[in-house]
């Protein structure tokens, strides 16, 4: 077992860090306040390879491991949590299209998504199907060489500004096995977008509702086979959970770095904050928990890379643990800033707002516990 980064991973991380420091961090506060979706920076990110990290090489991706991707996303999220989180969703879409699309889908979209010329959205959640995603109601009815989509999706990241939608819709009976996945042109006739949601965080990416009204989708846009949609949606989310957890780790690291600097400068009671042992110990705990979260995320990524049978459980544990622990680290770091932590001139309150949603989306942390406990209680199951 080797816990050290290899030469490539160090080089990837160095480059991602430089990109985050120069292109993301100086703009993150403005993007947040003005709710700007930085498509020009996403283009640049695409040119450098960030838009298709684990997409197969044959279709323009880099074919990297999930572990490599996590190492890279962690650095990016230190510069801007919300932009990086969107980039991770885009990566998930790029991977799904390239891995499960037929020749026509690949021909039309795979390279564009891999290069970031085209942006993607992942459309699973519905107004009445959130945690219970398998109860989704959007339908895809076969009509000749097309499917016709009807229904609505809610809280879709990037919606209205993206080009390709991966949509989970019902082609069969109730439950997960009746669901299929489609790659859909975001500008298709019959698609309408709701207003941009006014959110607590993740402000530099739009979140919208999408309504499908008799949207005709060529049959060849089906991903994998009919009835396999839920399975591949969950496969996408295994990696997605590692990514979101990673964004929490990177943000918490940045919050910790800032708190450390502040403690070395700020003086009260005639001493630097860094000289109070109560605060030193807080910092020690934050650092310890951060490393634990990071290692858990990397372990899950490695399980996914190796095709471990319990990869899904490890991804769920990593997502639950890292997003909770890192949110608390951001909160503690804000606390160490005193009143300044609450003021928007400093980034601490943004870190908190941006990482809050990581405990809710891509499966809430309660749903993660569902997945984990189901596995722990399974009959005759081996120890994890």
């Amino acid at each position, binding site marked *: 077992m080797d816990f050290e980064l290899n030469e490539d991973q160090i080089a*990837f991380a160095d*480059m991602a860090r430089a*990109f985050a420091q120069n292109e993301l961090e100086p703009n993150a506060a403005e993007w947040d306040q003005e709710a700007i979706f930085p498509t020009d920076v996403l283009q640049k990110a695409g040119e*450098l*390879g960030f838009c298709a*990290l684990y997409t197969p090489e044959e279709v323009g991706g*880099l074919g990297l491991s999930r572990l490599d991707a996590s190492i*890279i996303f962690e650095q990016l999220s230190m510069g801007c949590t919300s932009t990086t989180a969107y980039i991770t969703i885009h990566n998930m879409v790029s991977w799904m299209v390239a891995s499960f699309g037929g020749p026509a889908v690949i021909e039309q979209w795979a390279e564009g998504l891999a290069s970031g010329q085209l942006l993607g959205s992942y459309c699973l959640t519905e107004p009445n199907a959130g945690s219970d995603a398998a109860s989704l109601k959007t339908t895809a009815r076969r009509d000749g060489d097309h499917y016709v989509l009807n229904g609505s999706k809610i809280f879709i990241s990037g919606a209205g500004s993206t080009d390709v939608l991966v949509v989970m819709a019902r082609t069969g009976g109730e439950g997960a096995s009746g669901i299929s996945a489609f790659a859909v042109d975001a500008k298709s006739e019959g698609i309408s977008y709701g207003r941009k949601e006014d959110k607590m965080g993740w402000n530099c990416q739009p979140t919208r509702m999408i309504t499908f009204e008799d949207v005709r989708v060529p049959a060849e846009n089906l991903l994998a086979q009919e009835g396999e949609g839920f399975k591949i949606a969950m496969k996408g989310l295994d990696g997605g959970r590692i990514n979101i957890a990673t964004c929490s780790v990177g943000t918490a690291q940045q919050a910790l770095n800032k708190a450390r600097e502040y403690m070395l400068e700020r003086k009260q009671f005639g001493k630097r904050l860094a000289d109070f042992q109560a605060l030193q110990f807080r910092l020690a705990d934050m650092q310890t928990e951060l490393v634990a979260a990071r290692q858990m995320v990397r372990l899950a990524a490695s399980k996914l890379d190796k095709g471990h049978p319990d990869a899904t459980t490890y991804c769920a544990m990593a997502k639950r643990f890292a997003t909770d622990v890192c949110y608390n680290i951001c909160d503690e770091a804000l606390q160490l800033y005193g009143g300044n932590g609450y003021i928007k001139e400093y980034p601490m309150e943004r870190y908190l707002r941006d990482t809050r949603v990581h405990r809710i989306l891509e499966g809430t942390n309660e749903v993660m516990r569902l997945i984990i406990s189901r596995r722990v209680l399974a009959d005759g199951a081996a120890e994890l």
Partner: protein
Amino acid sequence: MKVLVAVKRVIDYNVKVRVKSDHTDVDLANVKMALNPFCEIAVEEAVRLKEAGTASEVVVVSIGPKACQEQIRTALALGADRGIQIETDTMPESLNVAKLLAKVVEAEQPQLVILGKQSIDADNNQTGQMLGALLDLPQGTFASDVKVAGDKVNVTREVDGGLQTLALNLPAIVTTDLRLNEPRYASLPNIMKAKKKPLEVKTPTDLGVELKSHTRLLNVTPPAERQAGIRVSSVDELVDKLKNEAKVLRGG
């Protein structure tokens, strides 16, 4: 046209430099190292010459312990074609570097050699000049613009009084200033490809150079800590202090 670029491994510019407690040197233990920023600009310029069709091959050379291969790989990821490492135990001083580079130039016969004007660790600003002297080649230092035209290269130099443009006969030596270009990021695919590019390792003995010490490092001290400021109550007091305490104003 072949372009040779010399690159150096130095402490990363983001790192807050610490001096060893015994004052023998800067503390490099567990410190992030990087490509010297001026060398990065040199690589970028060479790669741009190649992209413009002016250069046919870009060769990077670095001198130092094995770890400096990391910086060669960085240069290869930025677009250089192949690398040469000249293996030494420690970082040799400028004249030794210039002598080693001179041998590489004799072997490789580049038309243009680009170096950083200085490295941000020792700030010597002399290797390019020494190399020019050893090889008896024309040099354009502190370049903010480089244009190859036929068998000449026009180099715009940042000098105290403004800008000076020289036409040098090729082969020539150029050292880069900060404003020459803005280096790109190495893309992830190029970082991966860099691993497959050739990297040759040589020793000073292979090149027939004997390393000699011409200087001895006596002591390294950190800059004085900045003192807290004081508030002055009037312009007169300020002028008085500037004259009599800081001694930055004279006369009256």
